[in-house]
């Protein structure tokens, strides 16, 4: 997709030896697309802060837009818009969007 070109390139390519496609990160979600959160690979205090805001496994999130310059980006979760830097969003892993019914 064209939008992907403008997003930060993934730090690592697909994990070697993994049988299934690794979950993509929130930071790679194209603008306008939705994803379902799988897990948060973040230090506990940061993870708790994001969880309190609604970033939890199973919850649906949409990439809405980016700040001028592309970073931070704005995500819509449960009716609220929240901005995260790409370095943080890269640690929020998404479920492959194939399983496309409401989480939990």
């Amino acid at each position, binding site marked *: 997709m064209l939008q992907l070109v403008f997003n930060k390139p993934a730090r690592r390519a697909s994990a070697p030896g993994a049988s299934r496609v690794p979950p993509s990160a929130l930071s790679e979600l194209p603008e306008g697309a939705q994803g379902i959160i799988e897990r948060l690979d973040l230090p506990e205090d940061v993870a708790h802060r994001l969880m309190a805001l609604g970033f939890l496994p199973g919850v649906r999130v949409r990439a809405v837009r980016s700040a*001028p310059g592309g970073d931070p980006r704005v995500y819509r979760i449960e009716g609220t*818009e929240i*901005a995260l830097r790409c370095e943080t969003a890269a640690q929020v892993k998404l479920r492959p969007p194939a399983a496309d019914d409401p989480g939990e």
Partner: protein
Amino acid sequence: MNRTEECESCPLAGAPPRARVLAIVGPPNSGKSTLFNRLTGLSQKVANYPGVTVEQRTGKVRLGRDREVTLIDLPGIYSLVPCTEDERVAHDVLTGRMPGVPQPDAVIIVLDANVLSRHLMAAAPVLALGLPALVVLNMADELLSRGGQVDTAALSEHLGAPVALVSALRGEGFQAVYDFLEGRLHAGTPRLDRALLGDFPRCRRWAQHLGERAWQPPEPSLWSRRLDGVFLHPLAGPLIFLGVVVAVFQAMFAGARPLMEGLQALIHSSGGWVSALLPPGPLESLVSDGLCGGVGSVLVFLPQILLLFLFLGILEDSGYLARAALIADRTMARVGLQGKSFIPLISAYACAVPAVLATRTIENRRDRIATILIAPLMTCPARLPVYTLIIAAFLPERPLLGPLLGTRAAALLGLYALGLLAAIATARLLKSSILKSERTPFVLELPPYRRPTLRSLGLRLLDRTKIFLRRAGTVILGVTVLLWVLANLPVEDGRRPPIEHSYAGALGRAVEPLIRPLGFDWKIGVGLISSLAAREVIISTLGAIYGLEGDASLTGLQQAVRRDLTPAAALALLVFFAFAMQCISTIAVVRRETGGWKWPAIQFAYLGLLAYGGAFLAYRLAGLLL
């Protein structure tokens, strides 16, 4: 509250009357402060930005027939895990561990009905405390107009607490709130599975489940998204941001002028009227030179300062300021800070004291200290009198960009930029040396755009006027009178001495060797010494000093400084004021917030060196060029 007494279950019936204490708690930006203001009638800073209430406030609610309850407004929290200063305060108050604050008898949990599912998570730990609770779902008007719905009865049943749907802004749905305040509304103690609390994912599922049963989320408002499409547009966004800043400055300079001239004439004529009533002598001189020439010359700047606060208030209440933080984050990251530092720094344009308090929302202590240290470099309105005086005295007004931008507004803008650049450079230096730390995550909630209300803006301006007048009546008046005394002693042959021979003159001459390299004479020296208390005092001091020599009006002051300062020295004075930390209130609040004298001492010293060095450089360079 005008119902007849029908509460047999009222726990206070028969008991000796004791003032009930209730706490208002809820996530940031849920409208707690608006509810608090609506109930108490007290003015409290209400802003459409997460994290504005940094100290808890207390107010009284009258419930007719001289009965009242005490309300505590707590800072906004996402959870009761003491992660930020705000959350620690809320936790300590609610559990009765805050010294000097009684443990609340009951708690009002304010949630934004538009994001109910998320906000319920913040309600869970508060409900689990077991205090009698009322859950207030705020912003009902917005929820309903955007097509959302909520089943309060179902929610109440699941939470085990009464639920009220209100609009704090419009004052709708308050009957249940008053009933609860009176202790008439009871639904037993909240029942909640305590196992939920430590387990965030479980708690979240609980909230989501509850939300699905009782809540229909509103459609995202189309115009809010459209506005973001413009304000956060890659090209238009930053341009609009710059345009807004320039417009504010031009309006402050051009728009405030007629008001200032009117106020000036009023003060001048009333001063003349009062001194005509008094017999000629020391008292008459104190009134006309000390008070009208000194304090009066500072009062004139009130319209300009109020205009600044009006614009800042509109930006904050409308929700635009959060977008500005988003635009700024990239730049802030480059100097090692984060977008969250941007809000305290923007507030510092209004005053460094609330800015230092607003840094409490920054979790990382080193980031917080760095933000505090650079906050006084942001141009606060106390500098405006000095800037305005010098610019008006030395720079002729000419249009630069047609009617949009004049030379004087451009010069003022340049001084603001100077402070900002110094702040950026300092932050970079601090963050790469003594305050180095891991980059902290930036998490910013973008509130929906809202129309600023006249009520909120009006209260804010009223607050500002009170603070300004109190300052003028205490610090500025005190220093002015002291200086007038110093300028009139020792008495020579029963008359006041020439200003050069007075104690004030001697003081100025004592520091003159130190400031001579900056191009300042002893009169400016007296002004600098007095402005250590507060920046704008230099105007009243100079007003008093020159007042002793004649006309103390605004144009008189301009002529006087033009006579005493070379253009290069005038520039040096501007640079000095851009950097120096001349504010007792800021020093006091930094000491309180950092818990000791170490950081305020470092701050005062480095800003002083920066001011002296900068002024020296400016004087030399301008001397070469001009």
